[in-house]
């Protein structure tokens, strides 16, 4: 049966549907509080496709299959969603085996280079006198190391973010590139899978591990992407449009997950 795609949706809803397709049933998946779009995508996967996902949410593990709708929460320390908890996760215990917390992870960034190395530390040539001090790496360095796959996710797409070289690297991507870019560093081969932006999806070309345009979101041209990317992007001859959410996905997203409409703006 052909999928019934939705026609009227926002870019945020489109991205949530993409993220939903990345989740695999039975996995553990960390659900951030601050990143509303990835959170909605993971919950969408859970409610529609992955009943056995174990959600790591506000420092608890849970499964919300039976929840008719999710109330919103905005901070990782909001204790109210812990009412759904099946287990508490002590944050210090977490580091004993981060794989028990999540199989996939979403990493934000101030800067991203062509090989998917990313920076949350700050911007400036001199670490002792940064021109912009970032929030810090949070747990991204370690989580990206332990999960099976991670996703770069930014909420704007411009040449300040996508740069030839990050001023600092807080989470390693494919290193200096090449099929063995990570193995040369002595690291496992779990570099970033996709880079998700408000304009497009990008992946990494297997031989060079350089960023490659994979699809553009509706209304965005390849030129829009190229113009707003500060390094040379690999652009295939044919660049499809990003797969839209289905009618069912959009319904569940709006009725059960994003009840307050944060993704509709």
């Amino acid at each position, binding site marked *: 049966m052909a999928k019934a795609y939705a026609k009227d949706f926002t870019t945020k809803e489109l991205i949530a549907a993409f993220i939903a397709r990345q989740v695999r049933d039975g996995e553990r998946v960390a659900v951030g*509080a*601050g990143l509303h779009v990835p959170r909605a995508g993971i919950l969408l996967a859970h409610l529609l496709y992955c009943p056995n996902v174990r959600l790591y949410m506000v*420092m*608890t593990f849970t499964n919300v299959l039976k929840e008719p709708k999710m109330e919103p929460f*905005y*901070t*990782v*320390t*909001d*204790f*109210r969603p*812990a009412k759904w908890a099946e287990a*508490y*996760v*002590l*944050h*210090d215990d977490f*580091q004993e085996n*981060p794989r028990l917390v999540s199989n996939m992870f979403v990493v934000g960034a101030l800067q991203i280079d062509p090989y998917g*190395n990313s*920076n949350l*530390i*700050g911007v400036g040539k001199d*670490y*002792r*006198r*940064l*021109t*912009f*001090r*970032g*929030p*810090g*790496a*949070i*747990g*991204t*360095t*370690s*989580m*990206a*190391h*332990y999960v099976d796959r991670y996703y770069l996710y930014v909420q704007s797409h411009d040449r300040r973010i996508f740069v030839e070289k990050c001023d*600092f*690297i*807080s*989470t*390693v991507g494919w*290193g200096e590139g090449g099929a063995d870019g*990570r193995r040369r*560093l*002595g*690291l496992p081969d779990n570099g970033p899978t996709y880079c998700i932006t408000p304009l497009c999806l990008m992946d990494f070309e297997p031989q060079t591990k350089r960023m490659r345009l994979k699809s553009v979101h509706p209304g965005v041209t390849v030129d829009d992407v190229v113009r707003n990317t500060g390094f040379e992007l690999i652009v295939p001859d044919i660049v499809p449009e990003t797969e839209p959410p289905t009618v069912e996905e959009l319904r569940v997203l709006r009725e059960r997950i994003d009840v307050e409409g944060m993704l509709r703006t």
Partner: protein
Amino acid sequence: MALERKSLVIDEREAASWIRDGMTIAIGGFINSSHPMAIVRQIIRRGVRGLTVIGPASGGLDLDLLIGAGCVRKLVTAYMGGEHYCPVAPMFRAAVEHGELEVWECDEGMYYCALRAAAQRLPFTPWKAGIGTSFPEVNPDIKVFTDPITGEPLLAIPAIKPDIAIIYAAHADPYGNVQHIGTGFGDRALWRAADRTIVQVERIIPNEEVRRNPLATSLYGVDAVVRAPYGSHPFAAPGYYIEDAEHLREYVAAAMTYAKHGDRGPFDAYLRRYVLEPETHADYLEVIGIKRLISLHEY
């Protein structure tokens, strides 16, 4: 003559008097929740200077306030922000950009390595995540070394030992048995690493109540207990109250005026009104007002 156990209860003034210039102190909680604010404000009132502060793995605006008040020389943390209230903590950002604050740069995994090394009295613990990043460059305490078994490169994360950990929890008995509501975030790691620990609580409970649910005892024995109802305000307290969004926005607006425009006026006014002028924690609560406080009760 029957022997009696000694109560470890002190007030926030005595607790803050343990903190002296130049010490390394750890402050518990996580971003917008569970900070021992009665003690933090008293440390500012006392004008303590030159502290090395170990925040939680992810630090919040409690540390930003301490930085803005001039108490902090060096900060150990993997994140400094207020989530949706502000992406980067303003006074932190300004102090770093002005070269006034040293940061011990790490991520959360490395942070717990450093605390575990301190707790285990080891010079370091190894970590793999971070190979290929800038951490060993921006934090020269972190060394790349060769694993003596496999020969692969690893990071050596050195021990960081707090002289004193100051932790917020829901309850404790007078003898230092502490019970958190919820997970307690990384508070146990701070307690384990520190030489001494002070815990600030909403309520002091009888020892019998501790014994009723020993599974809930999160820190089995600390050095002092401070009672401070609403003591995490303006931050959340699991089981008691949510964060005071309006107050946090007021703080962020004041601090951002300095970070963006270099004008300390609003921040200093905040500091006077909420920290320096109230003499005690109870005085602070009067400034906030009971109406606001009860509006934050968790539901």
